[in-house]
């Protein structure tokens, strides 16, 4: 494919942009699922845009670090943000709802994918959501939610509990919201 014109003259009737809308790409997830997506939505990911420009987009773009479920979510996000006539307010609302139902594990999958695909807006949104969930939670909550066991020695653990007792007290209930 020829390199894209970086400075289109007429903004409103950019033929390149029109072509992108109609052209579709196929993305392939790590578990072999294939998704078609319009090029205008796909290039919101800087990583995909680079691949398209470097002409590795002959047919299918393989994304070996993203599984199918996560890729499906990411594509939903990209489609919304590439939608014609969606106002900033609508997009903001969509972002809010998009992340609100996700459990922590899914948020982490999405944040990894957004980082890999270089989608700034999504990365920011998911990071913010993860941080919001962590506010005023106990150490135990963190371990339960991230499915991690303490890898401190019992002595270290005891020492920390003694030194920073407040980190174990006065926090929100362990129920995930």
């Amino acid at each position, binding site marked *: 494919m020829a390199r894209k014109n970086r400075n289109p003259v007429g903004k409103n009737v950019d033929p390149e942009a029109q072509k992108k809308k109609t052209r579709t790409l196929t993305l392939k997830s790590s578990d072999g*699922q294939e*998704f078609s997506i319009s090029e205008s939505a796909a290039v919101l990911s800087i990583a995909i845009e680079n691949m398209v420009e470097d002409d590795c987009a002959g047919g299918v773009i393989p994304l070996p670090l993203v*599984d*199918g*479920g996560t890729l*499906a*979510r990411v*594509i*939903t996000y990209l489609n919304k943000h590439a939608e014609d006539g969606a106002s900033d307010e609508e997009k903001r609302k969509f972002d809010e709802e998009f992340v609100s139902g996700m459990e922590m*594990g899914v948020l*982490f999958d999405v*944040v*990894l994918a957004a*980082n890999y695909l270089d989608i700034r807006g999504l*990365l920011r949104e998911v*990071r*913010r959501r*993860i*941080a919001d969930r*962590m*506010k*005023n*939670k*106990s*150490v135990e909550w*963190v*371990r339960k939610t*991230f*499915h*991690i*066991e*303490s*890898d*401190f020695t019992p002595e270290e653990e005891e020492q*920390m509990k003694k*030194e*920073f*007792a*407040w*980190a174990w*007290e*006065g*926090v929100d209930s362990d129920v995930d919201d």
Partner: protein
Amino acid sequence: MVRIIEGESSSSNRRRRRRPIDRGAERLSTMPQHILIEILSRLSTLDAARVSFGSRIWMTTWRSLPNLIFYYSQFPAKVNKAHSFLRFVNWTIAHHDDSNVKILELRLGPMSYCEVLINYQWVEFAIQHSVQKLVLHGRICGTQNLAYSIFSCRSLVKLELALHELALSWPETIEKLVLHGRICGTQNLAYSIFSCRSLVKLELALHELALSWPETIELPNLRKLKLKFLLLSEMIPSQDLFSKFPALEKLSMFFCNVTSFNIFSISSSRLTQFTMSNCPGMENCLIRLQTPSLSKFVYVGCVPRENVLQVPPCAFQLVVDGDDSCTWTGSQNELSRTIVKLTRGLFGTRYMSAGRWLIQYLSMVPELPRRLASDRFNYLVMLTISLWPVARHVKTLMLLVSKCPILSVLSISFETPQGRVVNRGGYIEDYEGVGVFGGLTDITIKNLGGNGTEMMLARHLLARSPHLHKMKIEMNPHLDDVDVDLKIHQILECWKASPDANLMFD
């Protein structure tokens, strides 16, 4: 698309159920460090600590956290608070790795409750880690070298100091400078501030400091100037003070003594906002404005009779003349924004007195509790205020009082609005954002007429002030004896958070 999401999400659940522990640890360890840091940086340093105590991976992240923000008043430890806080800050700093610290913020206040001193070594640590923003509130020990090391710190762009008894001068690259408190060694102060070419924002809230404008002022970039508690003196009669700041856009003056001025003249082509509030001497000096770009004018005080307030007609204006006369022109939104800002300025002092306009306008601000959610007025000790006995105004007052942790003397005066029937019901159910009035020891309520709202205020003040010594109530003279007896009886029956509080009626 939908079908695929459903199909996959159940299979991913299955996978997660199979090896939950491995998967969690594995996921965390594959996560790029910069993402973990960005997540932790969005949390308060306290919340970030709780997460980091969970595992070594998080702890590693913790060691390179760029924002270190410590608020003593938000620290949760109940026993040995000062000791625990000190340990926490020391521990955090001792465990930090070589990466840069962008922000160090230490707010150890309110002054009268916090026994912890800012350790000079914490500041030194931040400077060695190329700190860009430094905020220090409280008392500090080992200040000999402080000024020298802060002001030779090349990375610093924002500095906010509210320190007691400190002698200093500043660096040449600074853009924002905020100084609160008392300062000693002021001989060269004015000179060194006013020759700091990089400054964009300057806020001086310094008590008993006579600020004289030096002859050479070199502040070509200064856009925002806020002066509080200063004693301003006139260099040459009627000379324009502010013409020397060519880029100045916002100017505000609170509680600045201007008694030595006959004419206070401001001419500046770029000035868009001007606020002058509660400045002793302002009622006797003529204010002369030559500010064609002015879009916002706020004046709180007594307006002298012959004033030349040439405010452009389309500008937003709020003029408070004395306690009761208050006029404004402009949009409702602008009024809300202005009044909230003005309140922040006015409540940043120790003794404050306001007519009923303040509460009246504040009560008109939509979503006031949310707007004031992060405000704490840590200096206010004494408040005298008038208001109408209506539910909305009482609610606003309670919200304000609960934001003043060391407020101890409160005097409330009810005014009956002329030509208006006061709603006698007016029970207040929802007290969004109102907490305990921990500092209140002395309350006076004047002109209590005994309607539902007024009684509710008395009841809430008694129930929420655990350290109250005395509440003095002066009844409205128009009440008849039977009514007075009834109201006194009702108030005496209220539950008191401080059982020893004395109630007096007049």
